[in-house]
């Protein structure tokens, strides 16, 4: 991934729905155009976060398997 996030949330070690709630909290604070990245060790986040990003009409930049955790990247578009 060559996109540099404006905000990184390290929610590793936190269980569902912690990472998603952290992502929503960051979304509320972010400006339109900002890229937010969330790190999670909870497998459920891989499904829950993209579902929320899609429902809220934001852009899913990608879901990446990192070394022992997932990184979900979104762009706030509205």
């Amino acid at each position: 991934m060559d996109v540099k996030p404006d905000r990184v949330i390290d929610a590793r070690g936190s269980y569902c729905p912690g990472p998603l709630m952290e992502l929503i909290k960051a979304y509320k604070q972010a400006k339109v155009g900002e890229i937010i990245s969330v790190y999670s060790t909870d497998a459920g986040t891989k499904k829950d976060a993209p579902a929320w990003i899609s429902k809220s009409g934001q852009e899913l930049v990608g879901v990446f398997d990192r070394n022992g955790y997932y990184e979900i990247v979104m762009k706030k578009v509205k």
Partner: protein
Amino acid sequence: MASKVLIVGDGDAGTIMANKLRFHTDIKDVEITVVGNSKEHYFKPDGVHISFSMIDYKRSVKPTEFLFNYGVNYVRDEVTRIDVADKTVSTKSGRNLDYDYLIIATGDRFTPEDIPGYETDAKHFYDLPHALELQKEIKSFKGGKIVIGQASIPIMCPPAPYEFTFLLEEYLNFHGLKDKTEIHYIYPLNRVFTIPNVSDFVAKRMEERGIITHTLFNVESVDPKNKKIQSLEGESINYDLLVLIPPHRGQKVITDSGLADDSGYIDVDKYKLNYKDYDNVFAIGDATNLPVSKAGATAHFQSMYLSNRIASETSGNIYNELYEGDVACTTVTGYEKGVTLYFNYNKPPKAKFDSKLDYFLKWQSADTFFSSMVRGVA
């Protein structure tokens, strides 16, 4: 000299902890003090039943000071500052309390101000005044559209919104109002409950009973003028009656004392319950940000672990057990139907069927709570 154990908070967690520790220790060896400012101890799980006039609220309330066992000192005062570096707890009346062991059991609080419009129109049953207010609303309800849910996560007693929904459906049926009413259930995640296994069970029951569900609905605002609730995700629903559990945060004193995360909760070791590197400072109950339910049942298991540990350590022994996230709770799934869930960090709950026995366990829980659990017996 006796070890001084100071417990901050006189709710479920603080009271159970004090009473259990009293059972496990000798007064000569351990001095136990609880500081808190509640006049009454309210058994919150009864709020659902109170809303439907199914029980008399008086059975759900006891005077706080009479719930402590012999040998527990109770100081009624408001804690204004906790200084773990200086080992001091300060109070509004000017007391400075010191300790050898500190247990923070301050619970959490409602923050309706986080949702614009909430306080004008939304109802809930999470404290006694609001449960009684909702009781009046339900008694005078003649049909329409009811929206139920929680504004955000986390909340105390996570199953309570679905318990309320199931009882409401039974209530409307009984009073011949079901055909005149639409029940809408909203939830912040992409399912109807946090734990997938339980969510499947609850979703099936909701579908069978004609309850309309809206998932990924994080409440952004309430519009009392147009009777409309708006989600962060861009969805809106009209209502005639809105039953919405307000957002929660940790107590202000925790934030003011520099012990909180950005939601006001205390980050503790998930297996040992101690705060950061302090081996004599612990937090239990709703005050923590542990990945377990915020519920009295959680505080009960945490108190079992922590009272054993402190009793062991103060008598010079080494305690190697760990708290493994145990929670057991019984929830209502309808009139004379309930389900008991048991789970911990490693074992998710299994909800397979609901039974009359489980319902009566729940029905009796205030009596069980006040006579044995809060006393540290069970």
